[in-house]
């Protein structure tokens, strides 16, 4: 890893990273891909986020669904842990609560494959500031 030695360099890196990330969710972009984020803060892990994370990683690969499974911090729906967020290219992200491996299977089969919304969707109830 090389050190960033100026603000310009930092901005350049930011732009390329941002572009790459955004490209995942662009419909018809060659890089577009299903994104699954698993909330893995203490609460999430305590209620079983780790096996859910592993399950998505293994199963999506097994079922030949090109996807990126990543961990993230607290989504703040503590009451509904484990929570995950699924982004299908071209669609708004969807948050699911109380996800166990059975639920994960349902999400893969019904939402990711067929685009049907199963139960357990948590409506997003906040706005997030965009930093610039």
């Amino acid at each position, binding site marked *: *890893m090389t*050190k*960033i*030695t*100026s*603000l310009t360099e*930092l*901005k350049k*890196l*930011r732009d390329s*990273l*941002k572009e*790459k*990330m955004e490209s995942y969710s662009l419909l018809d972009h060659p890089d577009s891909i299903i994104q699954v*984020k698993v*909330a893995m*803060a*203490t*609460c999430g*892990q305590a209620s079983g986020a780790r096996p859910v994370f592993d399950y998505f990683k293994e199963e999506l690969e097994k079922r030949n669904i090109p996807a990126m499974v*990543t*961990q*993230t*911090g*607290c*989504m*703040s*729906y*503590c*009451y*509904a842990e484990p929570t995950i*967020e699924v982004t299908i290219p071209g669609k708004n992200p969807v948050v699911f609560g109380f996800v166990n491996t059975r639920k994960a299977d349902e999400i893969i089969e019904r939402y990711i494959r067929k685009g049907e919304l199963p139960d357990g969707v948590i409506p*997003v*109830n*906040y*706005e*997030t*500031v965009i*930093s*610039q």
Partner: protein
Amino acid sequence: MKQKQLRIALRNCGVIDPERIEDYIAKDGYLALGKVLTELTPEATIEIIKKSGLRGRGGGGFPTGLKWEITRKVHGDQKYVVCNADEGDPGAFMDRSVLEGDPHSVLEAMAINGYCTGASKGLVYIRAEYPLAIERLKIAMKQAREYGFLGDQILGTGFCFDIEIRYGAGAFVCGEETALIHSMEGLRGEPTVKPPFPSESGYLGKPSNVNNVETYANIPVIINKGADWFASIGSAKSKGTKVFALAGKINNVGLVEVPMGTTLREVIYEIGGGIRDGKAFKAAQTGGPSGGCLTVKHLDIPIDYDNLIAAGSMMGSGGMIVMDEDDCMVAIAKFYLEFTVEESCGKCSPCRIGNKRLFEILEKITQGNGILEDLDKLKNLGKVIIDTSLCGLGQSSPNPVLSTLDNFYDEYIDHVTYKKCKSKVCKSLMTYIIDEEKCIGCTLCARNCPVNAISGERKQAHYIDPEKCIKCGACMEKCKFNAIFIN
């Protein structure tokens, strides 16, 4: 629909992978640091923070920019930037969430603070009870060093800054900044009289700027989006947003970040989804053991630093515990006092002994031995403890008692005069009674009573000897005819 919540401090939590600095950079991470280092003087940066109106999120609400300015102005060969991550309020987990979800934002803000105050060293004082947060913080520090956001000659400028971690070891009082500093020095975490404030004489006697995690998490955004933007959010004297850890008898337990000035009603009903099991809202305790309770009559006051104090509570670090009709407020006050008694450092007499006496009086009341005079004692003692204690812990520890006395005096009277606990929490005040009409004399209750307090002939109504009964509730659970009730 416009959402009630606005995430500034939590902007990256649940969004980015906290273990990947690239995710943070993609979200404009370290841009604010780059900006201040290359485009702004320390004074100009402090001016932005001052103008933004940001106040300390750890509880006290001291203007952050002013604190930075004081630290900057004090002469010192070595200064320190300290991050208070000793989140000790029971029921509060804002700081943990930020550190677990977005550790870089804190590191970036600390570096900015170092630039502003002239400090080259940062210290994060974090609870040892937060292993995951520690882990993620360590990863973040390593990555930040690799990218050159920490270390020597940051972003090609002459600014050098690095951060170390110090661990707490289970002492609530260490959230108080002078106690925290002593703890970082390897001493007992006892507070000392202020002044001198840490900004003048802090870690190792050097000027030290202490801010809490959430305060830092706001900094990069303020730099990026400007003071005016931040100051446009919130209420007249409290700017920006506040993160609350919403817990207790509420449907949607979770982290909530709302603009200052949002009402309790909005938080509880619109965001929190209302009270569990459709029960009635009774009180919300804010500020943890230092705070007080807000009741139905406070539901529509806008939540900010000043209004909470006016309502007899305080912002605290942001714990918000919701209670319903099943909670006994005397028992709640006793619960908090038990906590304070356990966590008092013991240095000053009003806190060391006074809180113990408060607790004992409350215990006496919940056991049904209270007298009216005890309520006056609670009040006088509470006021004296607030007035005379050395540090913030003692100066706020009687708040749960005084605030419940103010808002739920009737409940205290029930306990003291009528020896009744309507919420059926205080065991000593309960009597289990068998309804003669309903009892068929099956003897099941008598057979299950661990202390043989139930007598009666088969097929005849049974009787519970109140002298013997230990109020375990086993009989009531076993009775198939709902013949046993609590009076």
